[in-house]
């Protein structure tokens, strides 16, 4: 373990401050809790919020999995996994089922998560209304009054102009029928997995200094209209490696002649499917 630093890098007083914010966030599902985010040795935008949340909940007995774009082997996921191996000396894994904490950027694993697991999301912009109203003082008021007409109007205007909702990722959700929440930039395909998930879902935004949470089994509803129900979109293909037709796919450009193959973005899911078929 890295000498000269506390277990999991943050000092214990900071961890306590973050845990208090987490407890408050769990008590008010979907509500953003400001916290005194620290400056981390990784840049803002690389997952400093998720790292701080993970650092405050991780213990020596935990097994950590880190994914970026669903994959364990993307450079930033490797870098974060190495960081925790270095400062906390915890076991790391690439298997979803073996992890007690999964830190993620932009995806929810395909495999259903369990009660004894925690999913930590890295969040760039915690405020779901920021594109419609950039002033935080104003969006706070809107959340307090549950005044979400602006978002419904935006979705309606999309349908009126484009024939469908123009948001394909970071698709707004209503948590416990009270707070509008950003699910972080996961594809809308992943939104249904958040609903009544047995695992605790924690969201950390370092640069914006906000933490929020979805406790286990909490209803999470993607905003929609009766005549334009929410639809989870994926590329209409099978994975080239495991033949799954249910998983979220990455499109891989194979040549400059329009050649494409599609592979699972969740590398652990894809490997598991291939092993099962073998």
């Amino acid at each position: 373990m890295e000498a000269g630093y506390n277990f999991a890098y943050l000092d214990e007083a900071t961890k306590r401050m973050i845990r208090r914010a987490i407890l408050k966030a769990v008590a008010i599902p979907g509500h953003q809790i400001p916290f005194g985010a620290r400056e981390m040795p990784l840049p803002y935008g690389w997952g400093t919020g998720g790292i701080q949340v993970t650092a405050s909940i991780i213990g020596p007995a935990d097994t950590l999995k880190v994914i970026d774009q669903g994959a364990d082997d993307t450079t930033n996921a490797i870098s974060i996994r190495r960081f925790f191996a270095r400062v906390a000396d915890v076991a790391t894994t690439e298997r979803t089922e073996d992890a007690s904490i999964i830190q993620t950027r932009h995806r929810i694993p395909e495999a259903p998560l369990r009660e004894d697991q925690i999913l930590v999301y890295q969040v760039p912009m915690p405020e779901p209304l920021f594109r419609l109203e950039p002033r935080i003082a104003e969006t706070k008021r809107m959340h307090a009054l549950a005044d979400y007409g602006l978002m419904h109007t935006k979705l309606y205007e999309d349908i009126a102009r484009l024939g469908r909702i123009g948001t394909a990722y970071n698709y707004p959700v209503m948590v416990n029928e009270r707070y509008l929440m950003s699910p972080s930039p996961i594809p809308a395909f992943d939104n249904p997995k958040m609903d009544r998930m047995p695992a605790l879902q924690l969201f950390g935004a370092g640069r914006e200094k906000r933490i929020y949470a979805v406790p286990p089994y909490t209803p999470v509803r993607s905003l929609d209209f009766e005549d334009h129900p929410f639809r989870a979109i994926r590329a209409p293909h099978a994975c080239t490696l495991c033949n799954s037709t249910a998983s979220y796919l990455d499109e891989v450009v194979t040549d400059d002649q329009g050649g494409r193959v599609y592979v699972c973005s969740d590398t652990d899911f894809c490997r598991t499917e291939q092993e099962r078929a073998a």
Partner: protein
Amino acid sequence: MYVAVKGGEAAIDAAHAWLADARRGDAAVPELTTAQIEQQMTLAVDRVMAEGSCYDRGLAALALKQARGDGIEAAFLLRAYRTTLTRFGHAAPLDTAAMGITRRISATYKELPGGQVLGPTFDYTHRLLDFALAAEGVTRDAVPERAADEAAIPRVSELLAREGLMQREEAAEAEPSDLTREPLAFPADRSARLQNLARGDEGFLLGLGYSTQRGYGNAHPFVGEIRQGGVMVEFTPPELGFAIEIGEIDVTECQMVNQFHGSLTEPPQFTRGYGLVFGSGERKAMAMALVDRALRAAELGEDITAPAQDAEFVLYHSDNVEATGFVEHLKLPHYVDFQSELENIRAMRRNAV
């Protein structure tokens, strides 16, 4: 047959090795020492200390060396170190009236107690490249001795305030904000705003300050005073109950004098824009003073019409470590999101046809 590319771990290690090699440059050229950076790149060190929000010349010099001279990267390194240090309290307000002056300029009075002291300034240099500097071993000319001032040099703002022409600032009873511990909240009080600006990016503040002079914020500033030099830092340990000096730091202070027409409760008077920066960051201190005054629009009952007057806009975007992180994170993989956009736009095009 498609095979997924692996090897991110090896790639990271290789990139780090390459980075270290690129940092060192041509091995035939002697390696730069941190002492050389500290002594000869003083303004770069000052800027890293200011934006890194940590007064330590040696560490700032090390950060500059490690960052290959990139100021923002160096400030980031210094901040990431600073955040691991224990916070044990806050210092007493600096008494800049008691500063050991190395430079002191007023644009509002030709002559004033304490006089004008140019100090080591670029102001009246002709910007002609000095090719003699390219040669090594240039002999140094002796610096003329300045007669030492015995008396403390009064601040210009105080001369105005005594006449009732300058608005007095109320000493705050409350503990000053610390944005490194508590997140920014709005309305932000003056201590939070000033801390934010003092840590903020020089270029951003320069542009904003400049905009207030060009009609975006209706500023009428005069440099009441700029002073640079060493000031004592005093701290009151709770177990002692009285202030002790814990060190001396070099700072640059700028007090801008601004016109104010008065309101229902306040008579016409001058108001202050305040800038204070570690080291010799004069440009930033001046820009900070302009922006500080612009941000006082709400409390002075002025219309908020310009970006520099909008506290959320200014304070949320001034921090270059935050800004560079979020701008540069766009180079991280976004293929999952992009894929969802691809499918969405393909579907929209089908609808449109």
